[in-house]
């Protein structure tokens, strides 16, 4: 049996909810486990590098990740996400309000 057969694809939307906002040209996405037992899965699989790959072409800077185990949440800072941010930005989502659900489009490859 191939290794890929022992994995299943799970949309992040089924494991977490999220809210996002802005600080200058940086969008922040708070990612919150829907159940406490999902939090370790988020910590292991939703890494800064994975999120940076997910948003490739949408952000120009690096991704930082912070852990809030007390709230079963991760906080991501997406630098260079808002076309300059605030009043400078020409984007519909100049304040990064819906980067939250954009992150929830991520598909995780989890063991069956």
């Amino acid at each position, binding site marked *: 049996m191939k290794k890929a057969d022992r994995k299943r694809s799970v949309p992040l939307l089924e494991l977490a*909810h*999220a*809210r*996002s*906002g*802005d*600080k*200058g*040209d*940086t969008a*922040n996405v*708070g990612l*919150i486990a*829907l159940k406490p037992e999902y939090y370790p899965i988020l910590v292991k699989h939703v890494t800064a590098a994975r999120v940076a790959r*997910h*948003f*490739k*072409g*949408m952000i120009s800077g690096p991704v930082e990740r*912070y*852990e*809030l*185990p*007390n*709230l*079963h*949440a991760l*906080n991501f*800072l997406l630098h260079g996400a808002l*076309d*300059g*941010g*605030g*009043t*400078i930005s*020409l*984007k*519909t*989502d100049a304040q990064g309000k*819906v980067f*939250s*659900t*954009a992150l929830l*489009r991520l598909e995780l490859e989890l063991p069956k």
Partner: protein
Amino acid sequence: MKPRSATVRIAAGQGFWGDWLEAPYRQVTGGPVDYLMMDYLAEVTMSILQKQKSRDPSLGYAKDFIPLMERILPIVAERRIKITANAGGVNPRGCAQAVAEVARRLRLSGKLRIGVVTGDDLLGRLDGLLARGHELRNLDTNQRLADVRDRVVSANAYLGAWPVVDALRRGADVVVTGRVTDTGLTLAPMIHAFGWRPDAWDLLAAGTVAGHTIECGAQCSGGNCLVDWERIPDLANVGYPIVEAAPDGTFEITKHPGTGGRISVAGVTEQLVYEMGNPGEYITPDCIADFTTIRLEQHGKDRVRVSGVRGRPATDKLKVSIGYFYGYKAVGTLVYAWPDAYQKAQAADRILRQRLADLGLKFESVLTEFVGADATHGPLARASAPLDQLPEVQLRIGVRSPDRAAVDRFTREIAPLILNGPPSVTGFAGGRPKPEEIVAYWPALLDKGMVEPCVEVVDV
């Protein structure tokens, strides 16, 4: 000194300038509260207000605050509810004067004291500060303020809770401030009610977390909440949040009975992570709060208990919010209908860009979005949506330039596409877009000693 109360109830009435006008009225009439807290100032609001003040020196504050006060002052005076609000913008004294006039008209003379907090406005002091070596470098880009000094339109230090506490101690019923932090407006009543000390870092951090939780109004009571959003009840009558704080720094988030919305751990958590940087150090003028220490538990229906918050000493800096003129921008839109809506919108974009290039117009940025296809989720959406069958797509093009004439010419290149571009196009009823001046945000730090808050309390 009046006896220290067991708990104090602080109600959020406005999460930003432009928030629901009914919310403050409902907060003071829907059940018992001790304080009404209202946050009016977003990052660029100060520069908008500065512009208004430069045209009319009596303006420069949140004008909506005055008719609101007219509506609720008789109620809050009777119920002894105190108000903290940063509605003063760049003219807190003018704002306080307008509130006093309203109070006198309502025959509240002798029954109301108004506190005014100023000292945050640094615009007139900028050259002196720069000359003395305070560089006010941009926190994001590290650029020196001197590089854009001639384009600065506003500069305000973020003040914390303590000047507001001072006003409350001197008997103010309504405290009108300039650029006081959102969180300080909630923390101040707690410090005042419980006699918290300036170095009680855990308590100050707890009050700061309470402030962060309710500073966006209904965003912690069911508004903009992703979890279970379809089943959050009666958002038409959403109850704005109330902090019920105890002297030991624990508090509960709740709302008035009979209101809509929901107070849940999931919803409060969404608000806690909103606009969050490093959760281990949420820095305010009053303390550093550690958001990784917050404990939440559902404590009954529409009631979340918050405890465990730890804090650290405040830094010796204040954040300064500076607005400076950046350039011009404009955004134009057209709507293309099925069939091939997306392809038509793409073709129109290519034609428009070629015309802009042929005219030799120079822009710092030209951004195209296809609303209905990829405007919010970009390539992530394009990868999953059936783009060839969309019923309609809005072409949305924005340009930005230091050259006003270039932006102005762009605004005249949209309408012609209706008759000389791809077919099935509509949605131009709004007319030609208007070039807009961009006042950009410049965050910086300044030594605390350079800023002297000023507190005045006057009888009406």
